[in-house]
């Protein structure tokens, strides 16, 4: 290096050379050190720390950290709200992802051929991906909330008689509201991935099918679906892992209510930890939740690595 030549003292020269030789030898490890240290400090260390929290009583309302054994786990497991929130999380995630997948696939199939204005349409469709879920929740609240939102009025026009649905307060309508907000935000996720998959299918396959006079449905089943398969798995698993974290729109749209009707697992754990301050109990709950998701995460990441190798 140029700077090295300017060094006058032979001693520092050789030390610098030794240093640069050392750094050259360990170059690949030096590059990963900052990122690894950060992840260790902010993910691994907190998780290890929380193992201690699991077995003591860490509660802002009770001083001291007495050892309590498995009591924290027990309290979560016997809590009916915890069970309810887990079921709701599963039900909402599956519904959301299913609708997003079908709608995204339909959109991708419709948009795969080029047409005038396609670029602009694409840009509009993907807009929700860049908006905070908090704002998405806010936007749908504005549309749905009685009596301010225009939804009931428009439905009244359509049906011909007055509609007075509490979209954010009455079951089952509030589930519908939460689903529509999620579908609005995440359908483009499915759409862009599936569209990328569709455009990578060799067009000569379709041409051959057309010459042979194969029907649309058969073409979809025999060519499109098999080619799209890996992409579908990837998109659905990816989306599902985010869907089970559902929290932001609930926080804004229903606040978990009425009662605990719209508690998802994340919302339940948040409430236990940060409004009731039973931090140990919330930690125990989040470890159970983590254990349940880790199986799926591992499977997905393995899959991603495979796709990547090929």
């Amino acid at each position: 290096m140029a700077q090295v030549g300017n060094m006058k003292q032979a001693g520092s020269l050789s030390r610098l050379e030794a240093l640069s030789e050392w750094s050259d030898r360990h170059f690949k490890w030096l590059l990963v050190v900052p990122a690894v240290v950060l992840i260790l400090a902010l993910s691994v260390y907190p998780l290890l720390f929380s193992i201690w929290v699991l077995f003591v009583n860490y509660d802002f309302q009770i001083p001291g950290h007495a050892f309590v054994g498995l009591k924290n786990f027990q309290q979560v497991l016997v809590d009916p709200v915890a069970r309810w929130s887990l079921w709701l999380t599963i039900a909402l995630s599956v519904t959301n992802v299913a609708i997003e997948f079908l709608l995204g696939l339909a959109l991708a199939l419709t948009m795969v051929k080029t047409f005038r204005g396609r670029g602009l349409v694409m840009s509009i469709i993907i807009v929700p991906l860049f908006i905070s879920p908090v704002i998405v929740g806010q936007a749908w609240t504005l549309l749905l909330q009685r009596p301010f939102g225009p939804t009931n009025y428009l439905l009244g026009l359509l049906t011909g008689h007055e509609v007075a649905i509490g979209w954010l307060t009455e079951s089952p309508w509030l589930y519908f509201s939460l689903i529509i907000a999620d579908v609005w935000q995440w359908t483009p996720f499915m759409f862009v991935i599936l569209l990328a998959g569709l455009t990578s299918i060799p067009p000569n396959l379709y041409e051959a099918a057309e010459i042979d006079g194969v029907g649309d449905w058969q073409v979809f089943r025999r060519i499109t679906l098999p080619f799209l398969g890996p992409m579908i798995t990837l998109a659905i698993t990816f989306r599902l892992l985010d869907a089970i974290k559902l929290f932001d729109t609930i926080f804004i749209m229903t606040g978990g209510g009425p009662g605990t009707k719209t508690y998802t697992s994340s919302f339940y754990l948040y409430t236990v930890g940060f409004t009731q301050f039973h931090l140990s109990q919330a930690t125990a709950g989040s470890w159970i939740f983590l254990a349940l998701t880790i199986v799926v995460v591992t499977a997905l990441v393995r899959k991603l690595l495979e796709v990547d190798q090929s």
Partner: protein
Amino acid sequence: MARLPIGRILFIGLYLLFVLVPLYWMFITSIKPSDDYLAVPPIWVPKQPTLVHYSAALFAYRGLQGLINSLIISLSATALSALFGTLMAYSFARFNTGGKHLAFWVLSQRFLPPVAVVLPIFLIYRILGLHDTYFGMIIAYTVFTLPVSVWMMFAYFRGIPKSMEEAALVDGCSRWMSFRKIALPLAIPGIVAAAIFAFIACWTEFFFALILTSRYTFTLPTVFRAFLGFQGAQYGEASALAIVSLVPSIILGTLVQKHLVRGLTLGAVRG
């Protein structure tokens, strides 16, 4: 350029309406005088638009402070994440550092439920005095966006041929110089795209900010808490703040549209 059948036009048209109506209604609410909120039939084009909600949202509800905090935190975290992510990705792509396991470990961070991580971080931050500080939020967001930066850049570096760097090494360049003078300049477009995705992720994040900040370093999305629970009194303010927040991230997102597929799948799928 083919003409679309009528059914498809209708479907696309309806979907666009579905996307745009909530945004339009929010925008209209932000410039509508409060007296028009409960009008029947609903007012879709306000006759006397007003900016009063914007000034209220920014000043009375401390939206401006949230905006500044969000900028400081998101920009710093993005810079750190892009820097450390690029270094790690280069090491993975060229030297296969740590093999599959290290890459797997970094990637799996992306899928950890935030609630499981944030609870213990909150406890540690309280002990260390990092709760409600810029530093605490910046490093939390750096780690939160690292998997995306690393994996996007990993895919990018592998698309750049090794041969020039190898030639430089033969000519006596150090490994660091061959990275800095050859690989890095070629990777700039990828780094910019990855950084924009990281920025959008920080800018729109809510859960970490809700728990790790309170009175001082609260970010823009957490300001929306102020509008909860009051029957419609602050619809204009909430909408105004939403518009202020979503405009920059939509512009940035549209700029990196062609990298979107790679961004969403952490580089696993090429768009």
